[in-house]
Each structure stands twice: as structure tokens, then as C-alpha cells.
């Protein structure tokens, strides 16, 4: 398929019936992924999208690229396997907040340590959507959505902060109703060299009646003058925030700055890129240091058999150490 033809988001759409609730924030994420892939002129078959389990995870069925809908909490290791075996593929990974930060918390931490070149998106809706609205790890302590029998008893985890602690080299946040900004952010994440983590604020109108579109949009606090809502969400880049580590010596400063921004919530919720550092070698680069042919001959692209199935791996060198020969 010639690349020039793939320019429309609809080229990334499938005919699969979408069964999200009306008004679900996931629609925005789906659309922006399709737009970003189109704008980046990606060939659909060169892209693999991996997801966990949850409402969010169904996304892959609606995108016309290879789509791997895996197990609850395991999107990251599956995606890692795909990328490691064939680093020439573009890999996106999607999780719900329960999927990525609850049951998948251990992988979240360890993916940061690798810095593999891929983008990981968490659909942050504060609830376990598909199992009917239990509190997810991003829901704040003491709040009570309509789906809960009691106020939430756990402190929330801060995804931005955790990603920084884990070692992600690009950390961002988007909002699923700001399509234009989200497309740009997703594109930036895809283009980052290394492991990029993107938290997307994704209202779940069915179960989370607190962090709604109206709330993020500030409908409850109208500008006394014009009567216009004062959105809670604001853009980092519009306030001159510079997330980029331009020199390794800046790591500490830029990290601390990102951490401070990550603490903001409530009246002012920053979106945009919090941190970006391309001075850390990617996992692929680290492997290539040991195995120089890795990028061109990764595991997926090595011939292993001759025309008649003859095994082509030559074990001579290894066997020499394990063989006793006649005198």
C-alpha cells in the first residue's frame, strides 16, 4: 500500500460495532489515535496496538492496525515482547487505570527501567469501568462516585509521578475532550526516542460522576463576569513550561519541576508534556551494544531453517566446549 494514500483517520477505522456508553471519554482517545497515525503517515500493518482488559482495552478492535487485546494488567509485557522481537515495528500500548496501575503496577515500574521505544497510554477514568465502577487507583481518597457503596478508602496514586519514579523518559498528560491537543501530544509521544508515558483524563459518564466532562471543563465555576466556565484543565506549554532535558546535567532540575507540576490537581490540572529526556539510551540501543546486528536482524527476522526445513543454527562453537574428542 503506498504511503501517500494513508492520510485519513478513517483509513484506521474498522467496521466493528463500538459498544462504549454514549459520551464515554474513550471515543476521544480512539479518534485521536487514528488521527495521529494518519498524520504520521504510518502504514497500518507496521503498527501494532496492544491493550489490557477493560472498556479502554476494546480500543484496539476499532483501529485498523494489528490489534492485540491481552490480559488484565499485562498490556506492557506483551507490548514489550512484540517490540523486542521486532524493533522495526511501531508499538502503542493502552491500559485502563486499573489495568495499568492496579493489577499492572509491577510492570509499570519495570517498563520504566527499560526505556523501550514505545508509547504507553493510560485511560484515566478513576474507576474500573468494565466491572461496573469500583474505585480505580487514580480515584482520590475519601471521594464517593455514584457506583461506590462507601467513600474510597485508598489514597490515589499519581501516574505522572510514578512514571517519573519508574524512569519513563517522556511523560505527558492529555484530556480526551481536547482532541487537537491530544493528537499533538500522542504524536509527540510516538515520536519520542524511548519510553513515553501518557496519562489521558478520560471521563466515564456512567460510573464516575465526579471527574466529568463538566467538571474538567469547569461548568460548576463560571466566570462571574462573562458567565463562561473556567476550565480546570490548562496547557503546560501555554504557560511557558519547558519539559525538555537539553543536557544530562539538567535531569535533576527538570525532574523536580515535573514532580511539582504533577502535584497540581483540583482547580488547576496541567496537560501537555511534563518531562522529556532523550539522553538515556533506549533498551534497543543497550541490546545493540551487546549484539551489534540486533536492529537489522532482530529475533523475528532471522532465518532459522533451510529450504527443506534443515535447522540452520550452527552450534559448533558452543559444542566445542561441551564435547570430548577422540585422542
Amino acid at each position: 500500500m503506498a504511503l501517500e494514500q494513508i492520510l485519513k483517520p478513517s483509513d484506521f477505522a474498522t467496521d466493528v460495532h463500538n459498544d462504549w456508553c454514549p459520551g464515554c471519554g474513550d471515543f476521544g482517545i480512539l479518534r485521536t489515535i487514528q488521527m495521529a497515525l494518519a498524520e504520521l503517515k504510518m502504514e497500518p500493518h507496521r503498527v501494532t496496538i496492544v491493550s489490557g482488559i477493560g472498556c479502554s482495552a476494546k480500543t484496539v478492535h476499532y483501529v485498523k492496525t494489528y490489534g492485540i487485546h491481552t490480559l488484565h494488567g499485562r498490556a506492557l509485557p506483551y507490548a514489550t515482547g512484540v517490540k523486542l522481537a521486532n524493533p522495526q515495528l511501531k508499538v502503542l500500548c493502552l491500559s485502563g487505570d486499573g489495568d495499568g496501575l492496579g493489577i499492572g503496577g509491577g510492570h509499570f515500574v519495570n517498563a520504566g527501567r527499560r526505556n523501550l521505544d514505545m508509547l504507553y497510554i493510560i485511560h484515566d477514568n478513576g474507576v474500573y469501568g468494565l466491572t461496573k465502577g469500583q474505585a480505580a487507583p487514580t480515584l482520590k481518597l475519601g471521594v464517593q462516585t455514584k457506583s461506590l457503596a462507601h467513600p474510597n478508602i485508598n489514597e490515589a496514586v499519581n501516574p505522572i509521578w510514578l512514571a517519573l519514579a519508574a524512569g519513563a523518559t517522556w511523560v505527558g498528560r492529555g484530556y480526551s475532550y481536547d482532541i487537537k491537543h491530544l493528537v499533538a501530544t500522542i504524536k509527540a509521544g510516538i515520536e519520542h526516542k524511548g519510553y513515553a508515558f501518557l496519562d489521558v483524563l478520560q471521563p466515564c459518564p456512567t460510573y464516575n460522576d465526579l471527574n466529568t466532562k463538566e467538571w474538567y471543563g469547569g461548568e460548576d465555576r463560571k466566570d462571574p463576569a462573562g458567565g463562561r466556565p473556567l476550565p480546570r484543565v490548562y496547557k503546560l506549554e501555554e504557560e511557558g513550561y519547558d519539559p525538555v532535558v537539553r543536557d544530562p546535567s539538567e535531569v535533576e532540575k527538570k525532574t523536580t519541576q515535573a514532580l511539582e507540576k504533577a502535584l497540581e490537581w483540583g482547580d488547576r490540572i496541567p496537560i501537555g508534556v511534563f518531562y522529556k529526556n532523550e539522553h538515556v539510551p533506549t533498551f534497543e540501543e543497550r541490546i545493540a551494544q551487546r549484539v551489534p546486528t540486533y536492529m537489522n536482524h532482530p529475533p523475528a527476522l532471522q532465518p532459522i531453517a533451510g529450504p527443506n526445513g534443515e535447522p540452520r543454527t550452527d552450534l559448533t562453537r558452543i559444542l566445542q566446549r561441551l564435547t570430548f574428542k577422540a585422542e
Partner: protein
Amino acid sequence: MSSSAAKVNDLSWMIGGPQGSGVDSSANVFARACAAGGLHIFGKREFYSNIMGEHSYFALRAHSNLVRSHIDDVNVLATFEAETLFRHAREVTDDGAIIYDPSLGKTRLSDIPTIETRLAADLKTYLISRGVGETLDDVLAASKQRGVSLVPIPFKDLLEQIADEFQIDQLSKISRVVNMLAVGASFGILGFDFEMMRRALEDVFRAKAKVVNMNAAGARKAYDIAKALVPEFPYRLEKLPRPEARLFLTGSQATALGKLYGGMRFQTYYPITPASDESEFLEENELLDLNGHGLGPETRDAATPKEEGASILVVQTEDEIAAITMATGAALTGARSATATSGPGFCLMMEGIGWASINEVPIVITLYQRAGPSTGMPTRHEQGDLRFALHAGHGESPRILLASGDFEECIRDGLLAFNYADRYQMPVIHLVDKALANSYATTPVPDLSDLRIDRGALALENNGYSKDNPYKRFDLSNGPVSPRAFLGQEGTIFWNTGDEHEERGHITEDPMVRDAMMEKRFAKLDLAAKEIPRDVKLRYFGPKNPPTVIVSWGSTKGALLDALDRLWAEGAKVGYLHVRLINPFPTAEILPYLAKAKRRIGIEMNFGAQLAGIVREQTGVEMTHFILKYNGRPMSNTELYDAIQAVVRGKAAKRTVLTRGS
């Protein structure tokens, strides 16, 4: 405790000492020296789940013919410390010898804190029954009473001499030489050509000439002392001329070789005993050569140009959940991909195995069984995971189970596992076990020229799929196997999901599509049952239609064949069915062997006689006898011989539990 006739090249040797003190390399040198002299070797290693200090030992057999198992008797026990003597002196045959440090004679049993309360009590009872006290001298005296030759070696003196000769300032720097002295002394009484030991030392310490020389010098001194002390020892080792080329390796290495040869290019692991040895071996050998199609240099096809860029990527993951899922992700790209683990890690792979099965992903799980349940005895042996592996994962999904019984099967199954995974598009669980993994032996270089790589049905690139004729990953129209495409391939975009799915791989809950997919998946297992060759499924050893048939699996094979050789030589009519393909179960092939047998013995290293349960479930035939063991130590040739004989003679209870091993 048994025969006392002079024996050439039929020896059971043991060396013991604290973990981490160099016992392993001395055993290695002993084995290599024997191998260099053309002898066959079988070595078994026993150690605690500990890094340093706890007792470990190596039991080695050296023989002119192939040996496949250990025996309970020890002919020569060598050690430089007390605990080994307390623990093992009783195992030495009456015509055997003990090589020891005479300066330890006053050590009391109660001085050794690492001896288990139960064992200490037992030992005490023994010493009292012998009318002696509880020092090491008492233990030695009791041995001597029986006829055992005592070979005191002045380890410290010898070390000091070496230190002098090689100008070493601190004795502690050469403390490990002490083990080689014990080896040297052993060869001394056995009359073995010392040159073989020197060669072995060169082999083991390769580049370090000084270390080789130092060890050789010390060992020679001990050799001479021992030879002088026991000039007429009934056991002898003699060099054999011109042996054929032989492999000398462990079961882990054999399995790794099979997998590499089979084209594995991606392996994940999380550290665990005893599985991680394999992954670490692979990691050390990550740069590969691509070339002809032989296993060894002799079969290399010079015409095929050497290609660049072959390598295997071994990834240490954060846990075993990541190990199985990452390997599965890799398999989707077309790379032959595997993970290796043991029980606790396997527990964490249940969901991943189910996902791979419903998505028809070829993936290999090498399961190194060890003694369970739970953490159990991590460094000890068992075949306890059979049923768990068979039913792994909730719901119902097909998988193939292959269980290797010896090194050659490890190599072959290493490759076949991938072939079956690809051909039947499902997980293959390759069962190995601790005894197999950690034993090392010489074995003829197997002829593997029959092995081929079979990748099964593939949807090739430029495949003619189009909008009107789209690729369907789970196509239902052409038999149970649908051509597989790799991620990244053009024209074959597909979806996977752990949910039930329709042909393209999207979620469905349609009851009829569901039925079709369930039936498709299991039909592949029926196909495998039809296609997999009989000689992979099972092997039968022994006379035709004997009254007694043994059914067993896995690494009991070596000890069984060794024991049966003796029983057959004595005229016993016993057959042995070694089952290698556990699932799909070779019901039809097995039934004829069992139907006519009067006595059927299930022999397994587990409590529940798991294979016997499967046999009954599948064939309705019940075993009449069981010989089981679950104390963590592999079955010996000796105890199997005795137990089988008892069954044949009608003297055995329905259930015999073997308990030997320390």
C-alpha cells in the same frame, strides 16, 4: 555393603563439602579426567537451597559403558571436612574407601549445627548400635570394622607445601586446592593415569596456568600418598583407547541446545532454581552462527555461506507473568519464542498460557520440575507438576505436553516443542526436572540428522488477500489449522483477544461461533494425536508381552534402564513403557501394552502417581502396583532394582515408597 570382587571401570565415587567451597569444580575435574580417559560418567548433584556453607555433594559413576543413573552405594567417599563423613560414611561399601582429613578425628556430631535434628538422632542411634562414641574417629572406626579402607590425607601439610612451592603468602588464598587433593587421592587408590587429571585441570582452569600447576602438584602428592596407603584397592579405573566423540553436559545445557537448534530466538526468564541455569547458559551464548544444518562440526555444510546476525535475545523479566506474556508477544512477530521456569514461576503463567491457547500462539514453556508444593525444596527433585501442567489455566484450552527422559530427548524435544507449537498453533509445555537438569554425563553425540524445522501453516506476504477476500486469522473454512501471519506483515492485519472471537479475531459472544471455535481448537489436538510419530509418543523397552509392565515418564528413564539391564540379565520378564507425549495422550498406542499385563507398575517421582491417574482416566486400566518417591532425591538404580524385583516376585505391597538419598 555389597560385592567385594575387584572391579575395573565400574565405580561409584562421592565428594562432599560445604556449598561454595569448590566441591563442584573438584567433581567436575574428576568427571573430566575420567572422560578424558575414555570412560563414561554420570554425575548427580545434591545441595541445599543455600548459597554458602550448607552441605552439598556430588555422586559420580564412572564406567566403561554408558551410565544413566546413580546407585545408592558409594565405593570411594572423598572429603576434607567432617560433615560429609557424618552424613555419608554409612553409604560406603564394605570394600570401599574413605579419603579424609585425620586432623578432624575429634570432631563430635554435636559440633555440626547443620545436621538436621532428625538425622543427628538417627546417627546417634547407629553409633550406639555399633558400640562407638560420637566423634568422627568413631564413625571411621565403625567403617573400618566393616572392612572399609581408611585413607587419611594430611590436607593441611600438603597445602603448606604447595604454598611454599608456589610462593603463596596466605594459605587461605589456596584453600580451594584442598578439594583437588581429595580428587588426586581418589585417583591414587584407583590407579588411574594421573595425566588425565592434569588434562582435566587444564580444561577447567583454561587460561590460568599457575592455578593448573598448583592444583596438579598438590593432587599428585595426594595421589602418591593414597596409592602408597592402599596399593591393592579392589576398584580400579583404567584408560580406554580411542573413544568416539562424546558430549559432556548437563540436562539444562542439552535442553538449551535443542531449543537453539530448533531456531529459538527469544527467551524470557525470571531467576528460579533449577530453571535459570538454562537461561544463563543461553545468555552467555547469545551470539550465534548461522550455517549448515548439522548439530556438530562434522555435519557442517561448507557450501552454505556463513550468514551474519544470528543471535538469541534472552530477557530477564520482572516476574514470570511478564516472562510468559512477553514471550507470547514476541511469538506473535514470528520469532520462535520460549520461557523457562519452575513450579512457583509456572503458577504465575496460568493466564498467559490460556491466552496463548485461545489465540493459537505457538509458545514453548520449559518447565523444570522441582520438589513442591509451594516453595517446597527448591533444589531437590520431583515430578510433581504433571497434572497441573495438563490442566493449567481456567476453562478449557488445548496444549501439548512433552516430557523428556534423557539428554537426547531433551535436545530433540527442545526442537520438536517448537515444531508442534507452530504446527498446531498452541502452547507446548516441555517438562524437564531437577534430576535431569542438574545431572551431567557423557553421552555419544546424537545423530540428529532426521530433525527438520516445521513452521506449520503460514500466511505468506504477498498472499493475495484483499478487501473482498480478507485475511482471517481464525479462518474456520479449511480445517482446524488456520494459516498464521506475523505482526508487521503486509495484507494480513488481524486482531487477538482473550475473549472468545470470530474469524478475524474480534470479540464475539455468539453461541454458535463459540462452539465452532472451541471445536476448532480441540480438533488441532486430535490432529496432533494423529500426526505425531509413534516413537515420539512413547518407547517400549523389554521383551514382548511380559507379565509385568512398568509405566513411567521423565527422568526415571535412566535409573529404570540401568536397573532393568540388571533384571533382564537375570532373566526377569519386565517391560517398560516410557511415555514422552503426555498430551494428547497416546491412548491407542499404550493400551495394547497394558491390556495383557498381569502386573502393571506405575513408577513416578511423586506422591499421587499422576501419570497412572491419567492412564486410568484415558484407558480405564489401573496399575496394580506403584513405586513412588517424593523425598526430593532421585530414584537410584539400586532401589528401583530392589523394588521392581519385589513386585515381580509378588512380595511388594500395592504401594512402595522409596526413601533412599541424603
